[in-house]
């Protein structure tokens, strides 16, 4: 017994070392677990970016789609833009935009600024929801851009990805879930 107690601090140290070692592998990418995963897409009623028309969640198609949060002030959105265009060209999946808190510039309002950019670099979206005050974004728990949601045909959020969407993330995260959905 007395012998065993002598080794207790060593044992404690070992357990601590092993536990902390486990965390070394986990890369902290600043992603928060989403509270909306496997929940119904929140309902909303907001203007379209392209026109004065109002849209709601019912205007999204009844098959899996992506909702991509973007804005002209968001630099990382420009990084993922070519990949979104690639997905559109391949008609892989319907992509909708959520224009998040667009800023106005030189007498142009947010809508004009956003539309101008899409005209210049290409528009990967079926349409974009114009969320100037971040109302829908708040219901989605968005805290920055870009963010991408994968919603299934029942309108349930299946993936939330924070940060740039690229080929690697697409392969590892999205394709797997999409395959499961089709099975």
């Amino acid at each position, binding site marked *: 017994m*007395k012998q065993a*107690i002598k080794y*207790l601090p060593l044992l404690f140290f070992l357990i601590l070392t092993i536990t902390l070692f486990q965390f070394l592998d986990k890369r902290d990418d*600043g992603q*928060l*677990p*989403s*509270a*909306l995963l496997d929940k119904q897409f929140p309902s909303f009623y907001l203007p379209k970016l392209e026109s004065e028309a109002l849209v709601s969640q019912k205007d999204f198609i009844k098959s899996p789609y992506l909702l991509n949060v973007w804005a002209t002030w968001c630099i990382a959105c420009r990084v993922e833009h070519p990949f979104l265009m690639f997905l559109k060209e391949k008609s892989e999946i319907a992509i909708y935009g959520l224009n998040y*808190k667009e800023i106005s510039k030189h007498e142009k309002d947010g809508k004009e600024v956003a539309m101008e950019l899409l005209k210049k670099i290409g528009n990967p979206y079926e349409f974009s929801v114009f969320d100037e005050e*971040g109302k829908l974004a*708040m*219901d*989605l*728990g968005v*805290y*920055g851009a870009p963010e991408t949601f994968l919603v299934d045909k029942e309108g349930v959020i299946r993936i939330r990805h924070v940060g740039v969407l690229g080929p690697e993330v697409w392969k590892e995260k999205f394709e797997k879930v999409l395959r499961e959905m089709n099975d």
Partner: protein
Amino acid sequence: MTRGSFIFLVLFALSHFLESEEIAEVRSLESMEDQNRFNSLLLIYRCPKCQSSSLSGSDAPIAKDLKGQIKRLIEEGKNDKEIDNFLRQRYGDYISYKPPFRRNTLILWLSPFFLLLGILFMAIIWNIKKRDEESDLEAENVIKAVERTRLKGILEEES
């Protein structure tokens, strides 16, 4: 100090002034009670963008939005529980500095007590060990003293 840097300093001070005015606008609530509630709520919730800071200590745009939202909810007469639900439903448990007591947070809540128990256990054992050693030493001393007197007696007899 050059004139340029002086002007810069003045402008810098002014810009700070403008900023604080803006914050004051976000934070003004009708009653003192609501204002106090608002201020204490801002300390409980975390800024989702800058995860080691509370809403109160963050100037990130999202923190500003959330402050505005909490203010609106207070004005709508929502109680603390409802505001908590609103934030958790959207941003998850992570948004709050107060973790819920659930199965997956059991370790978090109970480990300090187990640690305390462990330390207590070790302390008791250590004490017992120490007391044993002391009584051993005492016994040894007694024996030594007895032997010494016996030796003395033998020596005196011989001389």
